[in-house]
């Protein structure tokens, strides 16, 4: 399952240095950027003097009352890569669950736009941008094993917006290369929520804009409902993560390339400071959800589109369709209905439900159309079925008119 694609596995001195910078340390805890100012060329070649003590010794002595896990059933959820959703129930059966999931913080070199060759050392959960969609029901607990592969360059952690306490779990999940941690949290609020890496300070947006974010959907136990309380069900989920990238360029205007994950840190921060992304893409790369990878549906099918943006506002629009029901905030409020364009506050995941009525090709875009066409924020649905002339008909095909 783990794909060790990182050539940084080899130079041990380099890894040791990074490992040693943990001493700077606690950096992550205090919010100071651990590697600020460090550039590849400036990295000293000496080995660290000492390492932090074992994780076991860091274990805080428990004083709070132990969690009451009685009545919970343990289940495993197999996470899958976007745009797909893990197997799940829309209406919960049985009592509350403890849902066990595993995620690996994989650093991997990904092509962002094959036209220009623009690439990034992405930070990922399980190798994908966005990270996998996690689904549970209100009242369930998520028990995450977070594992940082031994060949990683950087520390990683995770902040679940759906959770309560300890910076969304961020304060309890810092894992350095070769470490793993287990976090259990209770899904008390129903809705779609972002999760993202948040190691501290400038490392937070650095990791988030390198792809390290995803979404959790916490369904009401009795499923989705309209304002009148009628059940709303879907046939499929399209899970779309919108990612703003700020890729450094050289003096010629060409995108820079880097040998190791993390080498772009200083350049990236300069680029991020402009607040102007070089790319805004769906599912990691320009065109990742078009052509052969276009989303598929049939007329009459209902799709739940989950849109995650961990860093920046966006406004999805389905060209040729609508959002029949849109939950912009939580599932606790009634959904907006018959929406043309919905709003995703930066740091939010949103669910929009639509039932296709016409076949053809639909573009699903960030309706800042500059971002959709020039920065890459577009996906396509290819929908099969029978055309309905009652809904639309080309009465006169384009023809020359007399002048």
């Amino acid at each position, binding site marked *: 399952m783990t794909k060790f694609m990182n050539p940084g596995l080899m130079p041990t001195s380099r890894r040791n240095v990074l490992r040693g910078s943990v001493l700077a340390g606690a950096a992550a805890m205090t919010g100071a950027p651990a590697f600020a100012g460090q550039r590849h060329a400036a990295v000293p070649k000496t080995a660290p003097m000492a390492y932090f003590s074992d994780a076991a010794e860091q274990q805080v002595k428990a004083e709070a009352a132990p969690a009451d896990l009685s009545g919970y059933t343990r289940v495993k959820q197999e996470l899958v890569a976007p745009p797909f959703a893990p197997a799940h129930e829309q209406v919960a059966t049985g009592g509350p669950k403890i849902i066990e999931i595993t995620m690996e913080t994989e650093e991997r070199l990904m092509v962002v736009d*094959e*036209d*220009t*060759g623009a690439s990034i050392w992405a930070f990922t959960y399980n190798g994908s941008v966005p990270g996998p969609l996690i689904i549970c029901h209100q009242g369930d607990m998520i028990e995450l094993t977070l594992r940082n592969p031994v060949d990683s360059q950087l520390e990683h952690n995770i902040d679940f917006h759906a959770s309560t306490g300890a910076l969304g779990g961020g304060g309890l999940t810092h894992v350095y290369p070769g470490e793993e941690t287990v976090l259990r949290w209770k899904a008390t609020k129903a809705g779609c929520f972002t999760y993202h890496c948040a190691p501290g300070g400038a490392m937070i947006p650095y990791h988030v804009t390198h792809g390290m974010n995803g979404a959790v959907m916490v369904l009401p136990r009795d499923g989705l409902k309209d304002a009148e309380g009628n059940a709303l069900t879907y046939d499929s989920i399209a899970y779309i993560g919108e990612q703003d990238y700020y890729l450094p360029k*050289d003096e*010629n205007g*060409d995108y820079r390339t880097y040998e190791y994950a993390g080498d772009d840190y200083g350049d990236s921060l300069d680029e991020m400071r402009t607040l102007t992304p070089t790319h805004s893409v769906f599912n990691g790369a*320009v*065109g990742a959800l*078009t*052509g*052969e990878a*276009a989303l598929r549906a049939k007329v009459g099918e209902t799709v739940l589109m989950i849109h995650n943006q961990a860093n920046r506002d966006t406004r999805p629009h389905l*060209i040729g369709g609508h959002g029949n029901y849109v939950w912009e905030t939580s599932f606790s409020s009634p959904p907006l209905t018959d929406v043309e364009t919905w709003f995703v506050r930066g740091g939010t995941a949103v669910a929009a439900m639509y039932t296709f009525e016409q*076949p*053809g*090709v639909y*573009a699903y*875009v960030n309706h800042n*159309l500059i971002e*959709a*066409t*020039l920065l*890459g*924020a*577009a996906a*396509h649905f*290819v929908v099969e079925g*029978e*055309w309905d*002339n009652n809904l639309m*008909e*080309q009465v006169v*095909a*384009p*023809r*020359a008119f007399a002048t």
Partner: protein
Amino acid sequence: MPWLVGLAAVALIGAVFLYDDALVPTPQMAENPVIFPDGTALNVQKYEVTVAEWNVCHAAGACTLNLRVAKNRTESKMPATGLSYLDVSQYLAWINKATDQNFRLPTVQEWKFMAAEVLPDTPDPIFTDPQLSWASSYLLEPQTKRTLMPQGTFATTSQGIVDLNGSVWEWTKDCYSGASKRTVNNCPAYFVGGEHIAAVPYLVRDPARGGCAVGVPPAHLGMRLVHVKPSH
């Protein structure tokens, strides 16, 4: 208009023209002409016009764009891209003045014919309902050739024409004026030849992906010259 003044200075010296004190590279044509079913012959430039060739035009003041290549690339080996129909027209006017020849762009039919042997089969339309003709050409096939590569990376035809199936789509001289196919003086779009035929507005230099446009647009826009083989 420097070329009008300097025209008299143009002289053939070996394989290059001396023009306005600048060396004008003679377009290198493919080893063999393309012979069409009706017996007519067409000389076709072996490679797409390169960045180096393009920049001679720019240096002469006749082409607006000054092109550059990425650090690890060579100007004489990279196709000139990011060209609109207007840009291409500038180059054509200049090269014909500078070399006193009659280069032009190919027609769509000429382009399709010369490229047929290296192009993949046209995929079946994904919709057959006439009401869905607007969406029927959507490509669900994998597209593997979008990265800009040096000349010679892709296939060579039996006439010796290189890279017709590459990541650069080439402007043709044929206008696309809409479904009614009427003749217009102010042509809004021209066909470009590549892995598939596409119509591109004359102003476009970079056919960005995404948005409302259905289908997968060309990756890069460039050009290739042709001229009718002189009769002997």
